[in-house]
């Protein structure tokens, strides 16, 4: 039984995935990050197995990520935090433009396409991107490792898996 909210989110997720796929056709993919984070946010909300990445056996994942591209055109904060809706407290991902004043990890990347290659490549590898100067980080790298894993598992969403391969 799917509630109306979940059904609505699934529709939004499908739309988001479509836009994400369109974005892959653009040269620099400036909107890729926002679309990806939104997709992640929606999948966290509708997919219980995926949601375990941020809430599992009573442990919650609280973290703030700041992403910046080299041109300064993209600056996004992604925050995993608890949200109270009525009596229910659930872990959510919040995404907003602009940089939070403090974060667990800051990720600077050349452009959206480089970030896509990093997050969605068959063998995602943070060090490889650092070695090749496509990515720079500041802060706890373990958070980026986890994010890389979560982004990669988004590929299991039907439409994205085709694009990723």
């Amino acid at each position, binding site marked *: 039984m799917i509630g109306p909210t979940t059904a609505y989110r699934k529709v939004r997720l499908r739309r988001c995935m479509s836009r994400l796929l369109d974005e892959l056709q653009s040269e620099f993919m400036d909107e890729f990050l926002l679309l990806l984070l939104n997709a992640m946010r929606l999948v966290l909300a509708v997919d219980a197995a995926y949601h375990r990445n941020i809430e599992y056996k009573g442990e919650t994942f609280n973290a703030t990520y700041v992403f910046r591209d080299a041109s300064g055109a993209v600056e996004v904060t992604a925050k995993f935090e608890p949200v109270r809706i009525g009596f229910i407290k659930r872990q959510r991902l919040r995404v907003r433009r602009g940089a939070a004043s403090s974060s667990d990890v800051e990720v600077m990347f050349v452009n959206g396409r480089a970030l896509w290659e990093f997050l969605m490549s068959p063998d995602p590898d943070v*060090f490889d991107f*650092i070695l090749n100067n496509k990515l720079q980080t500041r802060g706890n790298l373990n958070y980026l490792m986890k994010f890389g894993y979560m982004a990669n598992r988004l590929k299991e969403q039907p439409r994205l898996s085709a694009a990723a391969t």
Partner: protein
Amino acid sequence: MVQRVLLTDDADLSAFDDLAAGGLDRLQRLKNRYLEIVERKNGRGVEVCIERARLITDSMRDAEASDEPMILRRARAINHYLSNRDVTFHDENLLAGATTSKEMGAPVYPELLGMSIWPELDSISERTSNPQYLSRENANTLNLDVFPYWMERTVLEQTRKRVEHEDPETFLALELMERVSFFINGGGATVSHVVPWFADVLEKGLLRMIDEAAARQAACASDSNPLSDRKDAFYQATVLSMHGILNYASRLRDEAHQRGFHEIAEVLSRVPAHPAQTFHEAIQTVWLCHVAILAENVNMAMSPGRLDQVLWPYFLADCERGELSIERALELIGCLWFKIADNTNLVPESAEKMFGGAGSVPAVTVGGVDRNGEDAVNDLTFLMLHATELLCIRDPNVNARIHLGKNPDEYVDRVARTILTTRAIPAVYNDEVVIASLQEQGVDLEDARDYAIVGCVEPTTSGSSYAETSAVLLNLTAAMDMTLNEGKRPPFKLGDREQINPDFISLTDLDAFPDFLQAFDLQLTFLVDHAVDLATALGETHRDVLPVPLLSCFFVGPMEKGIDLSAGGAKYNSSGATHVGFADVCDSLAAVQAFSEQHAGNGNPFEMMRDAVDADFIGHESILEFVRTRAPKFGGGSVDRDPAQAIAAWLVDRLYELYQSKRNARGGPYRPAYWTMTNHAGLGQIGGALPSGRRAKQVFSSGITPASQVAPDLLAAYLAVAKLCRHGPPGPEYPVPGGIALNMKYTPFVRSCRDSEYLSRFSDLIRGYFLAGGMQVQYTVQDYGTLLDAKLNPERYPDLIVRVSGYSAFFKDLNEAMQDELITRSQYDLHSGKAVLLRQYKGELT
């Protein structure tokens, strides 16, 4: 005088040249299985083993609210793991126990760098470089249960928290380290790199060692010294850890009984609880203690040491009782070799570029002299070399010590034959130079004589040095790049060059080469200072959050002092600092010198060189031609007159001076070294051009070896390096105490490796190099064509072993850059002594 008891009639072991024919069927079957796994013919190949990570994490999580000292929490976690881990017997090996629950496993150490594979959890089984099988279920356990606990608790993150606000220079060092191309500090990933002392456990057994530790603890209780609480916790932790080993051993014994492995069960009913009485018991004890040490310490270069010495009394006793045959001795040694090779490192794919193809590099050392300075070569030395030859597997990393004044010629020839047969193993060490180097570092003569190799090539004393030999790996070419670019580096794609060192000398202010050398020294000092600062900070974190009570039981010092190894309990407490791009930087400095002298008065030659290097010499072909054909090169000329040799000597002395003045977290000195594993290939691939004429993205030179195709003959190559290992005033006499890797490639002899003329030429060259002062040399006996064919047709060469710049590796496991480095590495013809020309192969290389 070789100690002979068993090999009296057939010292050459010619009756055992073939596994099957020599009655060594068990080893043949074990080897077949080993090859099936490394070639992935069993379907899975090497497997990631999460058992340790899961059990250790469970225990640490449960103890989170406890106010117990960290050393006790760690000991409980190790005990919990050893007491509950898998006790499966995978094959017919005569020894019980395994590093992981898999036939060949890569264990996860999440407290160090285990989490670096997090993004690869779903792809590691099928990745291009060295895939390691991980089931979906185990990936989920790591993702949901194990890794989240360690997010903020790794050594690196604990260090970051500590220095972020309090120590800006060390924090800068941490940020530089995370850029990889300046320096890498091993402390975030490993300390290990030591040789434990097994003689005590063999003589006493663990029960007596536990009693002794308990007695020391009891003595602390009645002591009013303010440090006694800390000592009390330390001794408690050692007792807990040793009980963990006993629990593991008794469960293995029960399993052996159940499976009908009665001989193994019988051995385990006595050891490691009680003193070893037989050769089999002694080997089993060493192996179980090694496994237990890896439960606590990451499986990187934990080295069993001088096994031909440690096991000799038990071998001798068996022989005197008439209970040991050559076949049986070889079988037991072979079983130990396969056990030592039962694990490999867990690394992300990019680390395969930097450290590609490494196993866990456990070094075994044979030969040399004993603590009294007498010939230590014995039957076991020969049997271990023979087993190495017969099995020809990647691990253990076998090393042969040679003392020209004490060891017989027969032994040196036997070492040479093993190298020719295996084409790569063992590496050889000059006792006289190593012992003197260690003495110059303040090591007592008897301890120095008892040195063994850890990891790739680093000499340390057995059971008394906590040597942390991989504390720093510094990219010397970064200092050259920063010199040419006013302290800025690297050409980061996210923006302009970044000012790394605010202190620099502008090229416009330079008048002559000595000024350039001063500018280079400024950048070099900056990098060394920061790399050492961070290494020291990481050492402090290890002391606070990752004490090693179990390992401390197997050392001279900690038990007597009541101080953990990580806190300085060992008798000797050095750290190692190795360097990438040594010959490239020597050649670059020599090129700048030659070019500046040639162009004096014609503009600013230093700026001209910088512009050429920045452009990768495109549009500056005349400069490229000049530096390639007219500038001197390290290894390319006379050691007495060549300016490049003088520069190399200056650099070695300068680094010695910089490091020796610093102290690590345990109060010991840093020892400079020159080995590079495969980092010279990995870092070379991302490096810009250099004044030496090396173009951008080409591999750097390996270890302390002259750049490929520079040294025209063997004499030039050997003498250039020998002169650096032992020179004299005004610098230190032995300026490379941390060890070196001289990588030589010889044309194989086509007829037989027993050919006496070829063999004697081979061993004579080792002797000559050692007499000239050389410390170490290692060989790959392959020609350009074979290696090129192996690159193009890897399926034809599944078990081809080569020497990178330290350890041995399967050629097929190396990344393309490292394969190309090995192919283009100068090949020397033993008969003529000349380098064989490479040019006919150039078109087929990347």
